[in-house]
């Protein structure tokens, strides 16, 4: 396969871009992969957590004697028993490990138990007596905003937005939009096993997205050096952001219990516990005001963006910042005013979730684009295309797009698959009970951590070639199911020109690789991919030097996998170092906090999706018939895992659009299980059609950017736009439940 490289050079690829079976699939289909609850170290104790039933309360007393006296209970621990600092360090140091004076959300941990059986641990929880003085709780964005209690605040100020709004020649539209909590609903709940390693250190194994975060948290609460804390990721049953920051809490709790009892301790959350106290997508509220010339050119946007951050800062500043940077969508806008606020409330801390602050604001932007088009009397697609970013344009932060900006091609291909030209004019005309509609939404996604997470940007890969030519690779990022092992295997096989079956990715382990930043932000293919490539290139350069006078039909330029083992054996005989640590540091990013200007991300993934719906006007039920989801990913390393990311992300987007939300009363989540927190089932699945566009990004491995998050981001607005097309009602709040649609129809 010949593809045009970033510099216009033709490059022949043999493994990258080709189908390859997932290396982790055979063990998983046989039930052999080991998840945390499948591991039982000898002498293991079970942990349980005493949790606050109140949103905000003063803790007057904690009495643990009865619980501690229960047979089988080894220890009951409170904040007084934390040897180190009683915090979970994240962006700020306000996150409490075990509540001391006050509790600030329902489900906050107050005491920890380790016992010989699950039953004894559960009974001990009931016996811990906590005297609370219930205090008034701040629960909503509005209350928190009123109190000016912010976890973070950001702004973008560019051009002269007010002048554009004052210009009578412009059409102005202002609306408020709301989005709900969303639960990650990974099928495996959070869980860890902690055990002293007998050498003065502690080993933590678990269902983790970011082992190095947990390492820092455990070292902090135990007051030991990070080198004494070894974190190993086990096969992990889904993350989606929910195992980025959050596992530092069970990780620290379990470490405290193991440190105290000197025994292995397992803490696996029940589904209810996981839903009550683990992070979620922030509920969002957006005021969106836009000024357009009558011919449909956006003149200015003025946006207020609020997120309900919950009780502690966790990752809210960066979640909020990503939303801010993308606050005008993939459109040219010269005059911009955006204010973004993460509000502190006495509710469960929200954190990372696929899309990371974009889905909330993109819902507002893209619903607003349709509403604005209607007001202007323009076709919504035509209105978008008039303003869409292209090569040479600047984003609202002033980032000039010089490479890999395939937005227009994405739209073209998505429209073709959606049969937009044929279907759009036909739909939206039904008058009967069932009405069809077609909706579209665009988005773009800055790949990687960006300017705000610079210090976490580099990534490493340790690579060892064994005597038989097989290759062991350890990276600092994690396999969560997204396909990292597959993609990195293909990259290594491509570099060496070897059989991919010789390559083995091993489980991430903080003792084996340097901190490589979190496995988030669609950065893994880019960052770990480049690190693996860099390691391969170091080894390859040494091999070529030593093999130049040999008659071995292997070179990095030729593709002769059968010659690889001989080449390896020859090099090892000559004492060539057949191992390396690859390192990748991305290009510079910038952000000026006063103006919001800079090049905040290294590059962007460009996306568009269409949704075709049938609305039942009697019941308000919305059936999604078809979804086409297109993305400029730079270069697709593995088409099958890429499609899987698109379909999975699309389905999470449909859940967000149609059914998923948490219902709270006094800060307590009422729907905390799969029978009432509803996620889509196989029977709710429409035709999901992936579209791939490849405008290669020069710094990415083979031109690749990132894909993990973007498929979920613009689904919800496409759904409400399709509903509006079908029945003429523009919803400003999701999920678009039958009740909401029915109320809109009968208003």
């Amino acid at each position, binding site marked *: 396969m010949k593809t045009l490289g970033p510099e216009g050079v033709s490059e022949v690829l043999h493994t990258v871009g080709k189908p390859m079976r997932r290396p982790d699939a055979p063990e998983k289909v046989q039930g052999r992969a080991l998840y945390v609850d499948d591991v039982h170290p000898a002498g293991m104790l079970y942990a349980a957590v005493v949790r606050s039933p109140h949103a905000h309360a003063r803790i007057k007393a904690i009495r643990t004697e009865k619980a501690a006296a229960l047979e089988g209970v080894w220890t009951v621990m409170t904040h007084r028993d934390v040897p180190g600092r009683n915090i979970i360090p994240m962006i700020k140091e306000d996150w409490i490990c075990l509540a001391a004076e006050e509790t600030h959300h329902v489900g906050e941990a107050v005491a920890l138990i380790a016992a010989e059986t699950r039953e004894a641990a559960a009974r001990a929880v009931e016996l811990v007596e906590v005297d609370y003085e219930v205090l008034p709780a701040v629960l909503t964005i509005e209350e928190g905003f009123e109190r000016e209690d912010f976890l973070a605040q950001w702004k973008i100020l560019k051009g002269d937005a007010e002048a554009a709004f004052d210009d009578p020649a412009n059409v102005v539209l202002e609306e408020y939009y709301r989005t709900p909590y969303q639960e990650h609903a990974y099928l495996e709940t959070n869980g860890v096993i902690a055990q002293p390693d007998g050498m003065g250190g502690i080993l933590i194994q678990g269902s983790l997205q970011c082992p190095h975060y947990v390492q820092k948290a455990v070292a902090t609460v135990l007051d030991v050096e990070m080198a004494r804390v070894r974190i190993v990721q086990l096969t992990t049953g889904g993350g989606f952001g929910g195992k980025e920051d959050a596992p530092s809490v069970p990780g620290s709790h379990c470490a405290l219990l193991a440190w105290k009892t000197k025994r292995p301790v397992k803490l696996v959350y029940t589904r209810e516990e996981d839903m009550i106290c683990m992070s979620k997508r922030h509920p969002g509220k957006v005021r969106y005001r836009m000024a357009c010339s009558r011919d449909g050119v956006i003149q200015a946007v003025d946006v207020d963006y609020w997120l309900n951050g919950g009780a502690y800062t966790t990752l809210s500043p960066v979640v909020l910042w990503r939303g801010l940077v993308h606050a005008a969508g993939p459109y040219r806008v010269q005059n911009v005013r955006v204010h973004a606020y993460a509000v502190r409330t006495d509710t469960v801390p929200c954190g990372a979730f696929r899309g990371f602050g974009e889905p909330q604001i993109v819902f507002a932007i893209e619903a607003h684009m349709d509403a604005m088009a209607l007001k202007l009397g323009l076709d919504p697609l035509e209105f978008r295309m008039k303003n869409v970013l292209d090569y040479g344009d600047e984003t609202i932060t002033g980032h000039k797009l010089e490479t890999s900006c395939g937005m227009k091609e994405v739209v073209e291909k998505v429209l073709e698959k959606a049969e937009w030209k044929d279907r759009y004019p036909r739909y939206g005309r039904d008058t009967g009970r069932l009405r069809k509609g077609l909706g579209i939404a665009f988005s773009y996604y800055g790949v990687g951590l960006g300017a705000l997470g610079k210090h976490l940007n580099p990534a490493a890969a340790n690579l060892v070639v064994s005597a038989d030519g097989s290759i062991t690779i350890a990276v600092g990022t994690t396999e969560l199911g997204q396909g990292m092992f597959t993609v990195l295997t293909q990259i290594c096989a491509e570099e060496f020109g070897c059989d991919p079956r010789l390559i083995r990715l091993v489980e991430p382990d903080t003792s084996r690789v340097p901190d490589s930043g979190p496995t988030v932000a669609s950065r893994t293919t880019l960052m770990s991919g480049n690190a693996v490539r860099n390691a391969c290139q170091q080894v390859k350069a040494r091999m070529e030097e030593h093999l130049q006078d040999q008659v071995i039909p292997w070179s990095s330029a030729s593709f002769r996998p059968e010659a690889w083992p001989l080449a390896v054996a020859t090099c090892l005989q000559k004492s060539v170092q057949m191992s390396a640590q690859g390192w990748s540091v991305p290009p510079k990013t910038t952000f000026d906090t006063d103006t919001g200007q800079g090049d905040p991300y290294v590059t962007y993934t460009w996306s568009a999706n269409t949704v075709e719906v049938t609305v039942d006007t009697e019941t308000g039920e919305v059936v999604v018939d078809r979804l086409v989801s297109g993305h400029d990913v730079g270069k697709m390393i593995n088409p099958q895992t890429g499609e899987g990311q698109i379909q999975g992300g699309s389905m999470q987007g449909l859940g967000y659009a149609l059914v998923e939300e948490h219902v709270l009363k006094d800060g307590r989540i009422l729907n905390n299980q799969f029978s009432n927190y*509803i996620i889509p089932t*196989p029977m709710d699945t429409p035709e999901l059609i992936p579209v791939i566009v490849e405008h290669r990004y020069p710094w990415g491995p083979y031109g690749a950017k990132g894909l993990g998050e973007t498929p979920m981001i613009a689904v919800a607005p496409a759904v409400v736009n399709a509903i509006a097309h079908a029945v003429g009602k523009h919803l400003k709040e999701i999920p678009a439940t039958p009740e909401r649609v029915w109320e809109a129809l009968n208003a």
Partner: protein
Amino acid sequence: MITVHRPASSEELFTLVATEPAPHFYLAGGTDLLVQHKDGAVPTPSTWFDLTAIRDFAGIRLENDMITVGALTTHDDLMRSPLIRKYAPVLVQGCEVIGGPQIRNRGTVGGNLANGSPAADTAPPLYSLEASVELTSRGGSRWLPIADFFLHVRKTALQPGELITAVRFPARAGVQGGFQRLGQRRSQAISKVSVAVTRASGYLAIACGSVAPTVIRAPRTEAILRGGGSLEEACRVIQEEVKPISDVRSTADYRRAMAGVLLRRVMESLG
């Protein structure tokens, strides 16, 4: 702590019931009881009797123009039974939307009723069939019309020492039936409103689920349709007969309106 017994016959069961300490719980498919147990809603210590080995409580038979269904009959058994498909199509449709295959393979008709939920998807169909429920204790059995069995949310006419052993309803010639419900998704969903109708020569019964503390009949609506009144009128009146609430799954207004919509759909499906 729970103590579980697995009697092989009804005699053995009632002997154990007489001797083992209360509180007693009867376990069949476990699709409700084990969920409640996990939620900590089942008192402990307690004594559980697993009924699934007792053959007397299983089976579907036609006798004296009555269909009798053993309490241990699963939703899947009901869906596949030729007798049920012929004499209670409404019940087949109710069973088809329960949970997913795994739940339908374990959940039983007796358990679905004993749980006392107005959202139980076999209950409106059985109301529309004017079924009776057999309640058995050591002292013997009694048959109760299903409408007298349900008292309130999670409250039934079961007395201590009694359990449901069978359900029966008349085998009506040429019977038609339809069941429609709305859930939050298309499988693994709990009904937020449902309507069941059974119609035969000289017979029409309508029942609604999830719109009151128990499943309810809609007598005024039935009277309109029996008297040859318009479907439009019936769909309006049924909305007055239901008494729904707003909860985590839906709103009262929506449920009320949907009772009318679903009634029309069921009636239209019957032709």
